[in-house]
């Protein structure tokens, strides 16, 4: 078998349903095999989008996403997408073409040191120089991407290796002496955690993306319901616990709810699950949860005690650990604590100005939430749109809120929505977008149109780079330096030019109908251009450098 044939056979073995990407000279041998259409290939219009599609597919389905790009510029175009997946621990396998092995290092045409460039943004990467290593490499790549703390793995594949012949043998088992993720938690540590929980008076569960990655949502719910402990989620943790549950505190952190942040700050025990105490979550770290003991459950030992000192670390898979922990906990009587929290919930609901006719972005998201009954998959871009989506779309299920949390990549949401739709064909998928971000991968409208992918893009068009503008307004004396997007394109015409549907909404009264129309559309992507109030800001907010309880704005 040739190297190219081995790649396709191996991908079939790994049950890959779809590959996203763009070809080029050095990938011609591989594409000659893909020509047989044994695996679906989605030709994107930019490689960055291909990586985000693989990522969106992976987040929505829990399977490994696959993207493919040619050498040089194809590979460098993937970089943002790979880095996005890396920061959020998303399993993707990226395959890049490389110039033929004798040319490597010679500044050959379209050569880039792809493994060098991607080394710090991949969990692991390979340059395959011998076709005999190819099958094993692919097997390892899928295993590494999806096990332990997941992440992107890249395989750089020279042209001559695709053409060389060897005997095909796909290994059944992996034998890596240096890679053995710890999966089950240490029983003694679990005992200690249970004891801390039993003696706590003001506990809070702080759930991150790890809950979703390990499939621990139902265990998390059990833990919370048995013990009555309230749950707050990170941006990546949303959907890991039902947003409407009475024990839910919503999101914490910079744009979290006041009640979540107050609860964390006043807690005497934080149970962190698959979360990493990111600076957007802790606020000023020195003042973070001063009276709390911390239990930290994480599969990555290097995440523990990185930002805050942890009292009881438990390294392992969140689902396994919670499964054990549940057996050891009892109902807690937390009436006083709940009374306090409910007081905050009553006093500080997440809200916005509703008593006029102005079209506000928050209203748009509330309407999408209601009309999809909370059951859509939501992807977001980055900026205000992302934070409003997190605040007002109360996801109830894991893998339904897809957002670039760690890297904060504008242009993520739309291609991620396409990837998610390919993994979940029947689902309603909305990309909650800003007009700035959408323009970063708007070319993928073609991809969605040609492949009949009926994702819906809700552009919260405020004519500016809203989130940055917000910081200029609040912290830079309203000096709006280059955050206006000017007249901007007519998104309805743009959509139509691509062959997609475009709907413009100027008034609050038109919102519902437009969303319903988009939901009813089963074939074409639909862009709804919501001309929202331009000056609207995301509140509440923890200013940079402030403590979590020093929130501003957002009072009812």
């Amino acid at each position, binding site marked *: 078998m040739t190297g190219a044939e081995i790649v396709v056979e191996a991908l079939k073995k790994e049950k890959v349903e779809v590959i996203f990407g763009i070809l080029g000279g050095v990938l011609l041998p591989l594409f000659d095999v893909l020509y047989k259409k044994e695996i679906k290939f989605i030709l994107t219009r930019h490689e960055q989008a291909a990586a985000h599609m693989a990522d969106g597919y992976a987040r929505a389905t829990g399977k490994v996403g696959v993207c493919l790009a040619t050498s040089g510029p194809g590979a460098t175009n993937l970089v943002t997408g790979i880095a996005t997946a890396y920061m959020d621990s998303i399993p993707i396998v990226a395959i890049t073409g490389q110039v033929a092995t004798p040319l490597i290092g010679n500044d050959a045409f379209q050569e880039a040191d792809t*493994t*060098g460039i991607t*080394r*710090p943004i991949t*969990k*692991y*990467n390979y*340059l395959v120089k011998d076709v005999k290593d190819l099958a094993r490499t692919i097997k390892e790549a899928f295993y*590494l991407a999806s096990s332990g703390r997941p992440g992107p793995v890249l395989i750089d594949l020279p042209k001559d290796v695709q053409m060389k012949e060897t005997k095909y043998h796909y290994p059944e088992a992996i034998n*890596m*002496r*240096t*890679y053995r993720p710890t999966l089950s938690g240490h029983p003694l540590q679990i005992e200690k955690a249970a004891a801390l929980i039993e003696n706590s008076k003001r506990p809070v569960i702080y759930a991150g993306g790890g809950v979703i990655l390990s499939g621990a949502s139902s265990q998390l719910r059990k833990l919370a319901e048995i013990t009555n402990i309230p749950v707050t989620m990170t941006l990546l943790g949303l959907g890991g616990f039902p947003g409407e549950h009475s024990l839910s505190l919503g999101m914490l952190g910079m744009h979290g709810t006041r009640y979540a942040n107050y609860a964390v700050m006043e807690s005497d025990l934080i149970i962190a699950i698959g979360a990493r105490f990111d600076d957007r979550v802790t606020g000023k770290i020195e003042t973070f949860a001063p009276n709390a003991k911390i239990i930290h459950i994480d599969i*990555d*030992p*290097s995440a523990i005690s*990185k930002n805050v000192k942890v009292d009881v670390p438990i390294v392992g898979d969140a689902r396994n650990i919670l499964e054990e922990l549940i057996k050891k906990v009892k109902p807690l009587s937390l009436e006083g604590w709940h009374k306090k929290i409910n007081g905050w919930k009553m006093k500080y609901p997440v809200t916005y100005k509703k008593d006029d006719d102005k079209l506000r972005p928050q209203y748009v998201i509330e309407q999408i939430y209601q009309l999809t009954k909370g059951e859509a998959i939501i992807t977001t871009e980055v900026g205000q749109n992302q934070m409003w989506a997190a605040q007002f779309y109360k996801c109830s299920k894991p893998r339904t809120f897809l957002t670039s949390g760690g890297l904060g990549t504008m242009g993520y949401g739309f291609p991620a929505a396409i990837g998610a739709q390919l993994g979940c064909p029947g689902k309603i998928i909305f990309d909650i977008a800003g007009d700035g971000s959408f323009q970063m991968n708007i070319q993928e409208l073609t991809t969605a149109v040609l492949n009949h992918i009926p994702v819906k893009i809700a552009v919260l068009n405020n004519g500016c780079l809203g989130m940055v503008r917000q910081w200029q307004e609040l912290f830079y004396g309203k000096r709006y330096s280059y955050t206006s997007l000017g007249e901007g394109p007519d998104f309805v015409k743009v959509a139509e030019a691509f062959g997609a549907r475009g709907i413009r909404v100027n008034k609050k009264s038109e919102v519902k109908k437009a969303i319903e129309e988009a939901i009813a559309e089963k074939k074409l992507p639909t862009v709804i251009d919501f001309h929202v109030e331009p000056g609207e800001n995301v509140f509440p907010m923890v200013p940079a450098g402030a403590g979590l309880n020093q929130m501003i704005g957002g009072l009812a």
Partner: protein
Amino acid sequence: MKKKEHLISMTVENKFGVLARVAGLFSARGFNIDSLSVAETEDTGVSHMNITVKGDEKILEQIIKQLNKLIDIIKVQDLTSYDCLERELILVRLSAVNRANIMKIVEIFGSQVVDVGQKSVVIELIGDSHKIEMTLKLLRPFGIKEIIRTGKVGIRKEGEK
């Protein structure tokens, strides 16, 4: 605050890219590697790396955790926290003017003259940092023309856990 020197000892897979991965973890955090030595072990598939660095303890602890996480790393130890033997080999070229006196010092410290030329002599020093610094201090007045150091290597003593 004076930063403590750490001698980090690692067994790693002997393949291309590993050194870059290790070095990348240090450089990404603005850490300078003071010395580095790499060589195969008795198992040719495995290499041994010794790195000395100075830096903030907390960041270093994080780097060691990250090193442990690297797929190609078999084992990482910060030898500084153990009772260990450490050695370095140094070649020093000195001006040959004072050859007789140089010989005396060399003898006292159990070093060796490994090359003698018209204008210069080359001395080989092996020892722990203390011995090497002492010897260099005494040799300096004779005019050191060149120093080549291997960087430190270390091994734990028996019975140490």
